[in-house]
């Protein structure tokens, strides 16, 4: 009898701990910025970011990111460049309307974190890892990350030319607790 009480209590504790370990879910704020720079004049922003974020700095193993960037929301500041970038020669927004990142694993690293996941862009899916930081402030916070991708890996544009292979993407994503 006593043994079953102990087992029951242990089960409750395990359930309680696992319930606490569930990551906090966050709502993506409107004032996010996604800047990209491929050298020279080739740079700009993506205006639309959607998706779900579950993250708790204390238990990163439960973190999950599923983010989508709308390709058609690109803005380089120049109309001709925008049209060119959305064309079949580059990002092919008609055929591949979103750039998607789905996380697989998050680990703590120094004062920040490292996320590993699948980046799907231009019909090519590749595993990537990049560091990010999270600044919490009450019920809100800000994720910041710098991602380096190689456009040739995703068959974007022709190799060479004026646009670098290396594309640096800076993300700043303000969030609020759901």
């Amino acid at each position, binding site marked *: 009898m006593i043994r079953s009480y102990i087992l029951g209590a242990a089960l409750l504790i395990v359930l309680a701990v696992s319930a606490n370990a569930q990551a906090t879910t966050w709502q993506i704020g409107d004032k996010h910025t996604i800047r990209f720079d491929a050298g020279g004049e080739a740079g*700009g922003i993506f205006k639309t970011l959607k998706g779900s974020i579950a993250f708790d700095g204390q238990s990163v193993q439960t973190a999950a990111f599923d983010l989508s960037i709308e390709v058609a929301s690109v*803005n380089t*500041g*120049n*109309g001709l460049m*925008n049209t060119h970038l959305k064309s079949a020669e580059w990002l092919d927004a008609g055929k591949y309307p979103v750039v998607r990142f789905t996380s697989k694993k998050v680990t703590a690293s120094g004062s920040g974190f490292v996320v590993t996941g699948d980046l799907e862009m231009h019909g090519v899916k590749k595993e990537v890892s990049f560091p990010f930081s999270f600044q919490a402030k009450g019920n809100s916070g800000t994720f910041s990350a710098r991602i380096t991708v190689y456009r040739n890996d995703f068959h974007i544009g022709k190799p060479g030319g004026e646009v670098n292979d290396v594309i640096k993407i800076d993300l700043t994503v303000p969030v609020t607790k759901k």
Partner: protein
Amino acid sequence: MSILKKAFSLAIVSGILSGCASLIYEKIYTSSLGADFGKVVTPVGIFVASIVGCLLAAVGFWLLQRMVPKYAEIIFNLLFSILTFATIIGPFAMKMPLDMNSPELLPGMVTPMHFFPALAWFTLRPIFIGHTGPYQKIFAH
């Protein structure tokens, strides 16, 4: 009145008229398409660009009158038209601040404005400067 003074008077009046026309066009374009480029295309900028463009034309007109008085007018008209047309590359190549939406609508607004100084100049020219060269006679024969 010397030709230089006449040319400068024409330039200033043409510039102001062109600025007014550009401003009216900008208001119509903005209200009909909902594209607001007020941060990069300001009324002061429109007037300054129009007047400066016409003043440069006046300098060119005066120089041609001194250098080739016989053909100055026809060369000037050709050059002014060609250079005006060439300036439309500017709006297409222009990079706007990234927080401004629909940059593809900018050339549609600015390109017609580039033609207004020449249009104003050619319209007002007979009032300020009479015929200066004998080219009409050349083409008449």
